[in-house]
């Protein structure tokens, strides 16, 4: 056999093989390599009592181009409407607020927690992710993310590398992502601790507008986020798999919420002024995540715990558990319980005391305050032919903000400064 004369015999050999095995050469290849697109769709309703209502639609498409070369593209659209807490405290009398745009006002009844009901936004998110094996025993993955809402733009890239060891019983992964966010809020970004002007305090429209403009910065601001994730996944036995992740996240830039404010109160607890909040312009957060999944004869138990700590002094603990129980070979029910607890940021203050002067940073946003939260839910799924699945999820979610140790002055003692937020979530998802 002379190599130089006879180059490729594969074609002739393939023909001979197909004659031998009675298999057509091409169609079989095309048939079994070509994997169809898989789609995941879901629609979610989220409703807080008297606050935000959101509807979210997700459409995700995945295709395996063979040999574990997988593309996933996802579009998420959510619409939000309703009211959100401004950070101001309730008062024994009615209160008037200027809307973030400066163009309008709204009133809050006596003893009611001030909510800004102009919250209305539509967000579109696009994600693309490519995953494939590389070298021997490695998997690489890269992705792009763009998210746009009325006053906010977020763009992110991510990359990850995973290696299997120990006959694929151990997987070690390393992930890195970078996000750039740009914010240009309605009415401009408020100047830190600027006092909110009210129209009625000014003689003319022009004087009011000048005063309002003085509280605002023009142009957009941005923030940069860098995330690093290290993970180990270990198969413990035939039924148990365990995962341990460590992540560090560093954010730098505009981290203040332009729609949040603080009440400045006197010793009687009466509001003297309303000032816009101010947060530090960087935050470094560490988190540790541990998850165990245990396969039973009749279902799967999934329990996880997450601890996070950051240089804003917010420490949080999350305990999450799901128990999937197969009712029949093609239906299952999955109860879900989640408990969350966080400590307050060092700059969290439910209100500012007029006598204390202004701090460097302060926020009355309950989301950076001390709180506990829990979720109680259930999911019911039906497995249909050819990997299709229809599922329904119903959950109750409650956030209970807590007083991290402030002695409320005067009238504030009789008012609910830390009202609970209660929400219901309903989701229908379909995979095909």
């Amino acid at each position, binding site marked *: 056999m002379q190599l130089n004369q006879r180059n490729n015999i594969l074609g002739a050999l393939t023909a001979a093989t197909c004659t031998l*095995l009675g298999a057509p050469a091409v169609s079989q290849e095309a048939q079994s390599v070509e994997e169809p697109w898989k789609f995941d769709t879901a629609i979610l309703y989220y409703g807080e009592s008297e606050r935000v209502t959101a509807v979210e639609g997700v459409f995700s498409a995945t295709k395996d181009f063979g*040999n574990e070369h997988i593309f996933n593209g996802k579009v998420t659209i959510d619409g939000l409407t309703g009211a959100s807490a401004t950070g101001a405290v309730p008062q024994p009398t009615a209160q008037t607020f200027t809307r973030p745009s400066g163009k309008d006002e709204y009133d809050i009844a006596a003893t009611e927690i001030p909510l800004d009901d102009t919250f209305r936004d539509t967000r579109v998110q696009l994600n693309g992710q490519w995953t494939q094996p590389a070298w021997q025993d490695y998997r690489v993955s890269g992705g792009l993310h763009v998210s746009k809402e009325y006053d906010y733009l977020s763009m992110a890239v991510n990359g990850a590398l995973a290696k299997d060891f120990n006959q694929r019983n151990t997987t070690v992964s390393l992930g890195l992502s970078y996000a750039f966010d740009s914010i240009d809020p309605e009415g401009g970004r408020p100047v830190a601790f600027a006092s909110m002007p009210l129209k009625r305090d000014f003689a003319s429209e022009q004087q009011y507008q000048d005063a309002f403009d003085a509280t605002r910065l023009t142009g957009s601001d941005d923030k940069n986020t860098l995330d690093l994730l290290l993970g180990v996944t270990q198969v413990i036995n035939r039924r148990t798999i365990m995962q341990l992740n460590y992540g560090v996240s560093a954010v730098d830039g505009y981290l203040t919420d332009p729609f949040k404010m603080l009440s400045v109160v006197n010793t009687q607890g009466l509001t003297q002024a309303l000032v816009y909040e101010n947060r530090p312009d960087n935050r470094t957060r560490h988190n540790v995540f541990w998850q165990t999944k245990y396969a039973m004869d009749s279902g799967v138990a999934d329990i996880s715990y997450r601890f996070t700590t950051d240089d804003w002094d917010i420490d949080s603990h999350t305990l999450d558990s799901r128990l999937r129980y197969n009712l029949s070979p093609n239906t299952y029910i999955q109860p879900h319980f989640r408990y969350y607890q966080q400590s307050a940021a060092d700059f969290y203050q439910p209100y500012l005391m007029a006598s204390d002067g202004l701090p460097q940073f302060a926020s009355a946003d309950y989301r950076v305050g001390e709180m506990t939260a829990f979720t109680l839910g259930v999911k019911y799924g039906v497995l249909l032919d050819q990997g299709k699945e229809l599922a329904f999820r119903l959950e109750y979610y409650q956030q209970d903000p807590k007083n991290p140790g402030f002695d409320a002055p005067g009238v504030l003692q009789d008012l609910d400064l830390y009202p609970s937020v209660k929400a219901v979530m309903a989701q229908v998802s379909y995979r095909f």
Partner: protein
Amino acid sequence: MASPCELLIDTTDKQLAGQLTALAFFEARRIEQKYSRYLSDNICSKINHSHGKSVIIDDETYRLLCFADSCYQLSDGLFDITSGVLRKVWKFDGSDRLPHAEEVEALLPLIGWPQVQFDQNSVTLPTGFELDFGGIGKEYAVDAVSKRCLELAPQVSVVVNFGGDIQVTRPRVNKQAWHIGIENPETEGDALRLIRITRGGLATSGDARRYLCKDGIRYSHILNPKTGNPVTDAPRSVTVAAEHCIQAGILATLALLNGKQAEEFLNQQGVMFWLQA
């Protein structure tokens, strides 16, 4: 098949797994009983003891002979299923007992595929000739079994592994590849490297266990039918991935028959391969 045979089945359906295993067992045994040269009273034995008379063959045997013929043509005579007669003098038992040159030469007139005549109904061998399906039989069995598995369970990924000759019927449901270890010729049982395979065939040819060693020279069990002697300077082991196991097997064997040029040969085929020098 003279080697461990296993099926890996990607299913939770115990009953289906049982059916596939039974199907594989009976198909493999059928092929072994039909074509093993170690059994009497089968078609192989009938052909080899025909003393120059024509023997009636069935369609499967005809297709195997056609395939053997193609391999002979494609390899310019390096792959020859009449060369099995050389095993009378070459015993690859790991010892240093080499045959005498005269013994080998005496057998050369009994080798030569072109002297075999066959058509759809019968085959005729010159007196003293023998056919040996050993070079393709196991790989053929792997392909035949995997074809049966795919017919019975078109949605289930099955790995058919007969002593390292492998066929994966289709991609797994969860898209993961099967990980197949290639054995280190030196240390039996240790995987030398892991190969990811989602579908298709994989075959290894080499002298992991079958060789002779004398005066520091290692004689591979791959015999050149033209000289009657083992190939020299070939890689110790060649693993090839191809659409079907039998293709992979032929390419691996032909690579070894090319001796020093094994790698060059495989590069020209444009297939995935792994060499162990």
